[in-house]
């Protein structure tokens, strides 16, 4: 015969203060657990959405990122002539030869400078990235000192807003438009005409060549041929893969940090739950003896106490997740130390994180409650009844 569920529930209610304290300890741990997962997920989402699976990025071999890369005009035109490059509805190649450099501009709030990616774009650049759309103003006129800024830049950097000017390469550049690229990394970039920027920065070579594949499955054969071509010293990556590699170090750091913190913190919370449950058992010795005398099995006692602890964990989990869900309002912006450029991403809550966090909280409750529950179940009836 099982002890009714309400017994466990009411016992938690009776010891309200202890229940609240224990559950809040667990809630904080779940909060940290969920927040780190959300942060990693936010970073992943930003980078995955930045790239498209059917786009290819070509950079100089071993250069790791567009910023370090250089692809000269001759090499670029060889790539342009490859059969895998798709054409748009107007028959033009869906291929962009781009320049990517970092410029140092101060933030609006702190006046501290940060490295921002400035991308010299070609007409096809926008077609390659359908996630980018102009939300305000207009596109820069070719041949003029005009740029457009990602919405994250416009908001946070001096001179990034529409109508404002940025100074670099001995010229003043007017921001004529703001583009919205959702949560992607492009939101943290400034775009301008590639030829104008190459002139200003005195860079005779492109940084990268990006294009859309005519046939998504043709990537491997393209990669093999291009990387084997003696005239070229480049490597080709799918755009999704390229952006994933960009933040490998950051993602790894967040992952290790998150796991370590969660393990340490959950030790604390499990200890808290254990203290609470041991006390719950100690305070109710007579009660347990009575239940046993009434004919409840050891298993029922065990189950009732484990249930109480699981409920405690679940309570903490729900509260912690509730708090963590507000973290979605926060955007983290930091330097990606693989590329030295500014990267903004938000905490992102997914269904996967939701159930993982709840499972984690219930797991903490279980680990904390199982030993005390065994103590309760193993109690000698006569001695338990005699205890005062």
């Amino acid at each position, binding site marked *: 015969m099982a002890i009714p569920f309400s017994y466990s529930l009411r016992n938690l209610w009776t010891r309200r203060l202890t229940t609240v304290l224990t559950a809040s300890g667990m809630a904080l741990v779940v909060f940290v657990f969920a927040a780190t997962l959300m942060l990693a997920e936010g970073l992943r989402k930003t980078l995955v959405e930045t790239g498209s699976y059917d786009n290819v990025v070509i950079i100089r071999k071993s250069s790791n990122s567009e910023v370090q890369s250089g692809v000269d005009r001759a090499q670029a035109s060889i790539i342009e002539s490859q059969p895998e490059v798709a054409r748009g509805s107007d028959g033009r190649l869906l291929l962009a030869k781009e320049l990517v450099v970092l410029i140092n501009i101060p933030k609006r709030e702190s006046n501290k*400078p940060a490295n921002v990616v400035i991308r010299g774009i070609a007409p096809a650049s926008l077609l390659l990235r359908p996630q980018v759309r102009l939300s305000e103003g207009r596109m820069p006129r070719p041949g003029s000192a005009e740029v457009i800024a990602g919405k994250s830049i416009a908001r946070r950097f001096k001179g990034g807003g529409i109508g404002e000017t940025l100074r670099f390469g001995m010229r003043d550049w007017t921001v004529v438009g703001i583009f919205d690229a959702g949560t992607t990394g492009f939101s943290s970039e400034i775009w301008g005409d590639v030829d104008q920027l190459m002139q200003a920065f005195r860079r005779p070579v492109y940084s990268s060549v990006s294009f859309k594949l005519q046939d998504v499955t043709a990537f491997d054969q393209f990669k093999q041929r291009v990387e084997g071509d003696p005239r070229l010293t480049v490597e080709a990556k799918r755009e999704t893969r390229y952006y994933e590699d960009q933040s490998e170090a950051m993602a790894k750091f967040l992952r290790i940090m998150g796991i370590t913190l969660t393990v340490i913190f959950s030790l604390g919370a499990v200890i808290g739950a254990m203290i609470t449950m041991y006390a719950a058992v100690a305070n109710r010795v007579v009660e347990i003896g009575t239940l046993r005398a009434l004919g409840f099995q050891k298993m029922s006692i065990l189950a009732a106490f484990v249930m109480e602890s699981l409920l405690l964990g679940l309570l903490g989990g729900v509260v912690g997740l509730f708090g963590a869900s507000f973290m979605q309002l926060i955007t983290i912006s930091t330097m990606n130390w693989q590329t*030295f450029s500014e990267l903004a991403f938000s905490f992102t809550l997914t269904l996967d994180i939701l159930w993982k966090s709840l499972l984690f909280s219930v797991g903490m409750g279980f680990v904390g409650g199982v030993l005390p529950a065994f103590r309760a179940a193993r109690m000698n009836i006569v001695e338990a009844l005699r205890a005062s």
Partner: protein
Amino acid sequence: MFFLKLIIRNAFRHKLRSTLTVVGIAIAIIAFGLLSTLVGLWYHGVEASSASRLVTRNAISLVFPLPLSYKDRIRQVPGVKTVSYGNWFGGIYIDEKHFFANEAMEPKSFLELYPEFILTPEQREAFIRDRKGCIVGKRLADTYGWKIGDLITLRGTIFPGQWEFVLRGIYRGAEKGTEERALFFHWDYLNETLKKTAPRRADQVGFYMIDVERPELAAEVSQAVDAIFKNSLAETLTETEKAFQLGFVAMTEAILVAIQIVSYVVIVIIMVVAANTMAMTARERIAEYATMKTLGFGGWHIAGIVFGESLVIALSGGLLGVALTFPAAQWIQVELAQFFPAFTIAPHTIALDLLAALVVGVAAGIFPTWRGATIGIAEGLRRIG
């Protein structure tokens, strides 16, 4: 004395519960101490850098070089003692996971500018003489078991190709904070190679390092240098090495802030756990407190006993935590050597640890202390039996 005895015996009355609480607090204190140390490491580069050395780089950003010809013009600025120059090389040893700093430098002036890199005179000579030579820090050499004369190959990311260097010297840091996980080689070697493979990129310098005659001249000299190249093709930005390093730290500030917040969250978590322990303990002892009150003890006595117990438990956890922080830091230093320079616990971290433990004890004790001090005797006694 009597009360101290009573407090200590009370604190360890429930052996299991007290042990669990003390262990919990110790874990939190270790985590707090290690996280504080990690935050400190962020500023490690800043602290190790000098306020009298200046760094001149391209005003647009670090990725843009400066012409080599600037060297002589900088040298003519009054107050400049030594000028050295180099490039961030960004080479990769084996693969991306084996990261360490590597830079191309003009060896003679570089070693002059950085007296904290200590080499024996023979090794110093050997390094300066060998165009393909390099020097590495002691900790880096230990990590890979390198010996003098070994061949080290880096794969270039900024400068393509496989680059081979001959190890000519292993330097030690003069101070604890000196970076011992870096590799330096001849700038000339880089430049000569570039002249052949990528002439457009030759004779370009990533940054200049300037030593001024007196630290007070730093601001004046940096303004003078930037003024020379104002409105040229490559405008410069000159700042002290400290400010330069701080700029890097500022760019990753968000992560730094997150770690800091998290290190306080762990203290809050354990505060809640300890508060729970104390609340339970005080509840169980209400009758004892009431008995003491009947004997004529006042609220303050009871308060002292409860509060003292909370402090004893918290500080035991704190001391245990501090004691375990050292082996934990040692373990990190050995196991994760490639990520951190020197993972050493600073004295102020210990102080912070103990302060945190104290705060935990105080916070955990407040409610039970108040309860114990204000409980009505008749009510308290009625809880018995």
